[in-house]
């Protein structure tokens, strides 16, 4: 049974918004389709001409088209609607699944659809000839599908299921080349780090569900914005716990450690994971529950802000010292996620989602560009690249567009979204955080310029002759470059602020400051920070030292070492968490296991086998089998005795016969 709730009645949206009509009603198709596609690929994929990739591509293409339609509907009319399917109840809790079709989820559908489509096209070429090609596309399709389950969730339960599915798929994809221990450990690390965070999310969800008596997000938000006492009393703790969940998926300090290691997966996975699926989930969750945070959990929002700021700054610094091109981008993602979370924390809902939106395109572009480079030179290390701008012009041009977008120079996408975050920090009066965020912009520009200079300028330092990738790989790059250039124009203060409307079709009482025009102080701070970063990087890597020498001359030893060791955070985790667990806890558990549980089970087994032996010997062999054997041997001996009268001599037989006749006759005569 499908129930449709028009949000207009439920959550105070403006009456001008529609319920999306038939397209919203059938939006479940795009959630279910990837799972069907994954099944089909699993069973029939290997026999198809493209080994299953065509099914994956087809399903993603459909998702892309459908999300375009929804996106168009949302732009023109605004859509806010949600659908529930009741599958049962536990006590007073209704177990419901369903799908949300409102501005926020449509934005996510579009991002997932677009980025997935381009990444899938790219992956068909990139993964050609790799092992487990078909399985890779199964997992990749499932990955996109899980993200759609997550973003379409109208209940916290479905959200949690999607959340975990994303985690499992990421495990499969990061560990795609599991033959090498390093890769499977990276997958394990990602999974366990996420799991630690998920515990927070799960407890948070349980707390919210128990205090509100419902799992529906819209009802929880309604209670949060209408002075319900029960939810107010747990708002802070629930807010923090749910944010811990978001910290895991969105790689916030100090749970970001899995994300750089996740580079062990194939590059298309990194692109998908960093742009559209997985890491955006945490920011999406904060956005989805934003009215709750802003309404009654604003103390928790301060914590969110602090962690966001720490993340954006610390991760950016690490990105400076990385030699692995993909890791530079990975830390850059962590840093940019820090920006999004900072925006959410400072109360700027639209700014955070806007940065998610622009970041999705230019980060996917950068990752696919890096993949194209890695495909050509067969190494991840920038110290073995250099001078590639001549050999790979298209990759170079698109990579430059991505870099400029990320560094935040106008008029590309990153400029507008970063400016909006800075403006909201400035507006809220977080002066200290504002300065750090500006410094973060400086760092961003610095490490991206460094990466570009080391990769594309100077002389080639690697082996072999790199050449430009196939058009199947460069076309997605160009499409993404287009998006990276223009995605920011949908929200220009004072000129066109469509994006603000798109993501707030359901207002739920969100109060936001929307400047009528640019905040010129924030704008020029960000811009100058970006330019300064680019300039300094150019000065260091082109003027003082040339790319051939790489980082040699500018290694400020102590600082450099701290950064190269990622603030010793991994060491800390290993020394104080993993190892103690491994050495003491795991060992004692092992001891308990072998000495008590195993002994018990062994004894149990021994007794059972002893009993079995007795039953076998006495009952089976001694009783039943013996009886059967006796029957047969008895018959046998008797037969061998009796057969002796069968002499084969006819006259003897007649003799017996006659004797018998005579005896019987005599008897008959005597008796009668």
């Amino acid at each position: 049974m499908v129930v449709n709730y028009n949000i207009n009645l439920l959550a105070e949206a403006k009456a001008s918004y529609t319920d999306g009509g038939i397209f919203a009603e059938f939006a479940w198709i795009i959630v279910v389709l990837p799972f069907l596609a994954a099944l089909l690929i699993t069973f029939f994929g290997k026999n198809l001409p493209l080994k299953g990739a065509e099914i994956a591509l087809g399903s993603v293409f459909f998702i892309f088209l459908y999300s375009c339609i929804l996106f168009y509907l949302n732009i023109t009319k605004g859509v806010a609607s949600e659908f529930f399917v009741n599958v049962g109840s536990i006590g007073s809790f209704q177990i419901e699944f369903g799908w949300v079709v409102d501005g926020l989820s449509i934005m996510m559908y579009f991002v997932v659809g677009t980025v997935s489509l381009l990444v899938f096209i790219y992956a068909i070429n990139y993964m050609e000839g790799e092992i487990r090609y078909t399985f890779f596309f199964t997992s990749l399709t499932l990955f996109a599908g899980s993200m759609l389950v997550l973003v379409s969730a109208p209940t916290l339960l479905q959200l949690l299921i999607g959340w975990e599915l994303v985690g499992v798929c990421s495990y499969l994809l990061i560990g795609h080349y599991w033959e090498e221990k390093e890769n499977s450990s990276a997958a394990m690390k990602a999974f366990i780090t996420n799991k630690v965070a998920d515990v927070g999310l799960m407890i948070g969800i349980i707390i919210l569900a128990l205090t509100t008596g419902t799992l529906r997000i819209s009802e929880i938000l309604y209670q949060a914005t209408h002075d319900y006492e029960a939810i107010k009393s747990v708002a802070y703790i629930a807010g923090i716990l749910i944010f811990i969940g978001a910290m895991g998926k969105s790689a916030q300090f100090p749970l970001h450690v899995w994300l750089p290691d996740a580079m062990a997966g194939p590059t298309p996975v990194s692109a998908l994971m960093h742009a559209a699926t997985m890491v955006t989930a945490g920011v999406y969750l904060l956005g989805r529950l934003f009215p709750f945070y802003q309404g009654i959990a604003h103390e928790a929002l301060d914590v969110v802000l602090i962690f966001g700021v720490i993340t954006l700054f610390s991760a950016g610094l690490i990105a400076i010292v990385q030699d692995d091109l993909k890791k530079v981008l990975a830390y850059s993602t962590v840093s940019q996620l820090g920006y999004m979370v900072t925006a959410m924390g400072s109360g700027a809902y639209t700014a955070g989602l806007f940065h998610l939106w622009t970041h999705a395109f230019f980060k996917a572009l950068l990752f696919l560009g890096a993949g194209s480079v890695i495909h050509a030179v067969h190494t991840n290390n920038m110290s073995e690249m250099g001078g590639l701008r001549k050999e790979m012009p298209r990759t170079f041009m698109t990579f430059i567009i991505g870099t400029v977008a990320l560094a935040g120079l106008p008029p590309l996408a990153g400029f507008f979204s970063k400016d909006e975050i800075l403006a909201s920090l400035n507006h809220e009066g977080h002066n200290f955080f504002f300065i750090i965020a500006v410094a973060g912009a400086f760092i961003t520009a610095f490490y991206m310029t460094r990466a570009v200079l080391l990769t594309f300028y100077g002389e080639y330092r690697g082996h072999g002759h790199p050449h430009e990738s196939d058009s199947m790989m460069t076309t997605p790059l160009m499409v993404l470059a287009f998006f990276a250039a223009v995605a920011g124009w949908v929200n220009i203060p004072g000129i066109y602020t469509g994006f603000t409307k798109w993501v707030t079709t359901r207002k739920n009482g969100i109060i936001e400051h929307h400047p009528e025009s640019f905040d010129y102080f924030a704008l020029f701070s960000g811009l100058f920070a970006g330019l300064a970063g680019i300039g300094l990087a150019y000065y260091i890597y082109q003027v003082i030292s040339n790319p051939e020498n790489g980082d040699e001359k500018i290694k400020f030893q102590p600082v450099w070492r701290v950064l190269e060791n990622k603030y010793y955070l991994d060491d800390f985790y290993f020394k104080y968490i993993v190892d103690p667990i491994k050495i003491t806890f795991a060992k004692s558990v092992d001891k308990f296991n072998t000495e008590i549980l195993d002994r018990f089970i062994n004894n149990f087994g021994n007794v059972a086998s002893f009993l079995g032996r007795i039953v076998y010997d006495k009952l089976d062999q001694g009783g039943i089998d013996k009886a059967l054997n006796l029957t047969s041997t008895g018959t046998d001996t008797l037969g061998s005795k009796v057969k002796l009268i069968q002499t084969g001599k006819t006259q003897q037989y007649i003799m017996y016969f006659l004797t018998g006749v005579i005896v019987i006759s005599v008897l008959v005569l005597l008796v009668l």
Partner: protein
Amino acid sequence: MSAQPFLIAAAALFSMGIYGILVRRNAVMVLLSIELILNAVNINFVVFNQMLSDVLLNGQIFAIFVITIAAAEVGIGLAIVLMLFRNRQTANINEFDLMKW
């Protein structure tokens, strides 16, 4: 006319047949002895028919049946003996122990 002499003759014939079956070693002689027994029976059929004055002549008819069957039986029996003789070069009935276990 009393039936007794006929019955005594038939019994004598029967006994001779039994004796022949039991002691003769030659298979052909055994077959001949069987014929004697059959003819003893035939005599009994005819005699009892006459004694009972059966107008339907059941006894005689049975005697004719027995003769017919005896002829057939001798035909088959002699053929078997012939085949045995061909295979074993003997007609001694003690040599034929095919039915021994």
